[in-house]
């Protein structure tokens, strides 16, 4: 149902942009802006670069829509994904060239980690609340899995639990984290 509704909405947006409707461009941006940013952030682990990717992606998508280059209005999402990935590749190539020229002086790489990309104050507090009631073995699992990057079979052997138990632990903690994060961001 969601997919059908999305496809219908996308077709309407595409049609209106082709007609020069500015509100349609705003609607397009509101619908896909966060996704493009998340995609770029997931790939580059840099908020600044993700912002650049988002801006460049929407610039190219709008140009393409205005010029009626989208073959199927129902595939707007995959089209934006393709454009965003092309922008990212270009940026990575450009960044590599820059690094090779002035790597030490410019330090363009910065802190490109998952933590720097996705952590904010609310996320830290949400995790703190979610982990508060955890048993030592459950906390050990989180540390071994996400920080030491051990496999689940390895952790299961080390902690003496079944792998299925690890999935349940993660699912439970993640749910508590989500609830805490929502509460913190909505307040």
């Amino acid at each position, binding site marked *: 149902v969601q997919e059908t509704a999305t496809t219908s909405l996308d077709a309407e947006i595409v049609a209106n942009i082709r007609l020069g409707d500015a509100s349609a461009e705003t609607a397009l941006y509101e619908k896909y802006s966060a996704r493009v940013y998340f995609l770029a952030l997931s790939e580059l682990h840099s908020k600044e670069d993700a912002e650049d990717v988002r801006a460049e992606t929407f610039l190219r998508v709008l140009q393409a829509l205005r010029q009626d280059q989208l073959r199927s209005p129902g595939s707007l999402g995959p089209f934006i994904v393709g454009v965003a990935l092309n922008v990212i590749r270009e940026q990575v190539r450009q960044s590599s060239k820059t690094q090779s020229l002035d790597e030490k002086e410019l330090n363009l790489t910065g802190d490109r980690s998952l933590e720097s990309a996705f952590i904010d104050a609310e996320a830290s507090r949400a995790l703190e609340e979610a982990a508060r009631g955890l048993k030592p073995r459950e906390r050990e699992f989180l540390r071994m899995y*996400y920080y030491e990057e051990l496999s689940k079979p390895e952790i299961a052997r080390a902690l003496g639990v079944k792998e299925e138990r690890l999935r349940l632990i993660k699912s439970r903690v*993640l749910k508590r984290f989500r609830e805490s994060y929502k509460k913190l961001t909505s307040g």
Partner: protein
Amino acid sequence: LKEAMTHREIEEKEIIERYVLHQLSSDERRAFQEHYFECDECFERAHTEARFIASARKASAAGALAPTNEAKKAAASFWGAGWWRPVLALSATASLVLAAVVIWLWLSRTRLQTQLESERQARQTSAAGARQSIDNTQNEIEAKLRQSETERARLQQRLDELERRQPARPNHDLIAQARIPSVTLESSRDSSGIAQLSVPAGARKVLLLIPVEPGNRFASFTAEVFTKSKVLIDSIAGVRPNRSGSLAVSVPAARLGSGDYRVRLYGVNQGQHELLAEYDLRVLKK
């Protein structure tokens, strides 16, 4: 055409987590990106999971998820107090010492058992040898006894035969002694009376029989015969006791007339004379 990713597939393959951790293949990655561009729920879940994993990493790096902290808190009332450490160390040390002592005792016991066993075997061997030696000696003695007995019986038989063949001969010494006048002297202190000796005519000598204690310390005895007026008429030296334990002192009958005499007996040892007794004697010559 690429197939669209389903929620079931996303759930079963843990696609969201693997996407955040960059563990998907490029095709899977692209498929999931296209999926969450159309799916609000998966986009929200992916974003949340990315925040969650990032936060978990940061907390782990900061030590907030260190199990030791939790464990210390949980066990602070008991293990955290630390009193058990010296007790545990002491117990472990005592156990080690005890184990060493037990092993040492066991080894000593084994060594002593071996030593005792070899000593016992040596004793058994020695005792068996001694028994054998004793048996051999006993057998030899018994054989000699049998041989001696046989020899004695043979000699006894021979002696009996000789005695039967030899005619009986008169004992001239006893006969002679029986014809010689004699008298047994008793000490004048012990005797109330005086010893009397009848000397028939024709007697050549008389015998004065003086009993002496058996096993005395004298090599020989000397007897002196005095008249009543203390004139020495004879001294007989070198007298030794006969088989009946008496001294047979022979005095020529010619020197004795009828009358009273006194006889003194001396014990002789290493040339020294010791007066042992005096006897009174009355001689009646016929």
